């Protein structure tokens, strides 16, 4: 039999249900591989011993009706996990142990999932390369010294390296889809309001969404089904009919109208990405889909809008880290001095930069010029999508304007780092669902992704289109285990 860690999530569930594998065998296999993969630095906290105990308990009295029966899963360290340290990649939360469980991780536990550890990420999810984490850079298993993307960089790295059969991330401006694209994996950002934000360390509350990261579209459908629930603990959680995404998965896209936005053909985009896009278009046509040229005229304003809205919300959300009730505290001569030193020493440079941008755009005299302006432009961006969705069922674009870059390459140029999210940010601003699937390699052999954007709450359609693309693309991630001696 092939290695346990080579199996995909749905396959593992099936084998456990058929009693071909036990939870203990599966959990041990992923933990052993994780232990050999420290060089990737994908984990911030390990929960190995506890996880094996839980697996043994599961095997003693297995409940095969569960949808994740005894399946080990490592999760992004932005989800609060009861009694397991949760850092958000920050020094300020280095020793924080939540007394409650996030709704999304609770859903995973309720279905029989076992948390094996907490995965590295950019500090407070602010970054596109995992280089802002207090706990160090993460290696992309595709090649040494390559970034795994961000902010869910530990998640994408651990998944691609097969340290966990599936994982979860959060996406505020591309933090699931861009790392998925950089590592040859599948990542889905659900519609805003689909997955509960309760217990997720908040970054920008009007944009944040949790979502699955997996090896293929089937696994993604299963994870989404479990993650997406209506939750009274999140005031923006939306009650709608959630589908059985996995059961309904269907590669038939005959008659589906797919939009191609001309504004996404940006100057200086590598030829390979254009070719990848053409390949996607060809597959849609061959499978009976209809391609329609569309225009999203305000696309170019999405990034500047995002870099007002997200820092503004962050500056407000991160005001709670004051060294009083939890987290790191520095000594100060008085209360104000203590606050200022705690926040200066506890936050990293990128987080401080964004808090200060946010504070500035919200400050007296500048609110109208920046924050209100950005909210108005956000309306225009959303209107663009509303308009095209009168004509099309979904939209196809590349996931990122380039493949993964080297560690350190973009660290000193914040604007160039921000440009990474040019194709993903508009979707968060409009609150729409989007999936990134691996679709090819560039000439360096690094993975590239295609993004399918859907109508609000129509995750099933983008899963189906992605499923059809996946079957025809037949992507192979050629990862050698270079980090294992």
């Amino acid at each position, binding site marked *: 039999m092939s290695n346990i860690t080579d199996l995909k999530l749905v396959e593992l569930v099936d084998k456990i249900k058929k009693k071909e594998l036990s939870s203990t065998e599966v959990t041990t296999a992923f933990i052993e591989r994780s232990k050999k993969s420290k060089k990737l630095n994908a984990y911030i906290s390990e929960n190995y011993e506890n996880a094996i105990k839980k697996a043994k308990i599961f095997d003693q009295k297995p409940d095969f009706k569960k949808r994740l029966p005894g399946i080990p899963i490592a999760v992004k360290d932005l989800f609060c996990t009861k009694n397991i340290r949760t850092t958000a990649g920050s020094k300020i939360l280095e020793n924080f142990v939540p007394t409650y469980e996030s709704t999304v991780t609770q859903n995973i536990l309720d279905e029989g999932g076992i948390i094996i550890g907490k995965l590295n990420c950019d500090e407070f999810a602010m970054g596109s390369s995992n280089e802002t984490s207090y706990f160090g850079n993460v290696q992309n298993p595709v090649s040494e010294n390559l970034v795994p993307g961000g902010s869910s960089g530990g998640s994408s790295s651990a998944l691609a390296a097969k340290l966990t059969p599936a994982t979860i991330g959060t996406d505020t401006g591309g933090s699931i889809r861009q790392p998925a694209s950089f590592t040859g994996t599948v990542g889905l950002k659900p519609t805003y309001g689909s997955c509960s934000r309760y217990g997720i360390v908040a970054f920008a509350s009007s944009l944040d969404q949790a979502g699955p990261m997996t090896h293929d579209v089937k696994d993604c459908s299963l994870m989404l089904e479990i993650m997406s629930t209506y939750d*009274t603990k999140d005031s*923006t959680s939306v009650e709608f009919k959630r589908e059985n995404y996995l059961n309904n998965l269907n590669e038939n896209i005959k008659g589906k109208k797919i939009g191609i936005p001309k504004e996404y053909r940006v100057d200086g985009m590598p030829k390979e990405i254009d070719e990848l896009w053409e390949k996607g278009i060809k597959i849609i046509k061959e499978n009976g889909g209809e391609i329609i040229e569309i225009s999203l005229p305000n696309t170019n304003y999405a990034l500047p809008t995002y870099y007002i809205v997200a820092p503004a919300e962050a500056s407000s959300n991160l005001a709670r880290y004051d060294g009083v009730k939890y987290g790191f505290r520095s000594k100060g001569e008085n*209360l104000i001095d*203590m606050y200022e030193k705690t926040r200066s020493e506890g936050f990293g440079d990128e987080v401080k930069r964004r808090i200060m941008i946010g504070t500035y755009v919200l400050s007296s005299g500048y609110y109208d010029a920046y924050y209100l302006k950005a909210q108005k432009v956000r309306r225009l961006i959303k209107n663009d999508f509303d308009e095209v969705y009168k004509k099309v069922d979904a939209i196809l674009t590349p996931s990122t304007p380039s493949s993964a870059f080297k560690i350190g390459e973009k660290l000193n140029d914040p*604007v160039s780092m921000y440009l990474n999210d040019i194709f993903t940010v508009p979707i968060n601003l409009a609150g729409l669902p989007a999936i990134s699937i691996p679709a090819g390699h560039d000439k360096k052999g690094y993975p590239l992704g295609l993004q399918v954007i859907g109508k609000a709450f129509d995750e099933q359609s983008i899963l189906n289109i992605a499923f059809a693309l996946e079957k025809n693309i037949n992507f192979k991630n050629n990862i050698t285990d270079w980090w294992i001696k």
Partner: protein
Amino acid sequence: MTINLKTVKHISKLSRISIDDNKAKKLGKDLNSIFSFIEKLNELDTKNTEPLTSIAETTLKLRKDEIKSENIREDILKNSPDKNKDFFVVPKVVE
């Protein structure tokens, strides 16, 4: 628009983040490059556009005001950097 050193210091005060002159200079440079990128929004006429304040256009639901978690005082205090019995301790604020 340019953000000068004085403004950076002012924002740092408002943000409750102490910052030395060297860092303030570097930060000023970063903020200027980010803001020149943000200025692009001024190309758009938004006089007649309503701001989008929430993407989930739902009305907030009311719920009963009832206690759901009890006896969590000890749990909550566990994470505090400094405590005394049932209280969080902070530097003295009154003389």
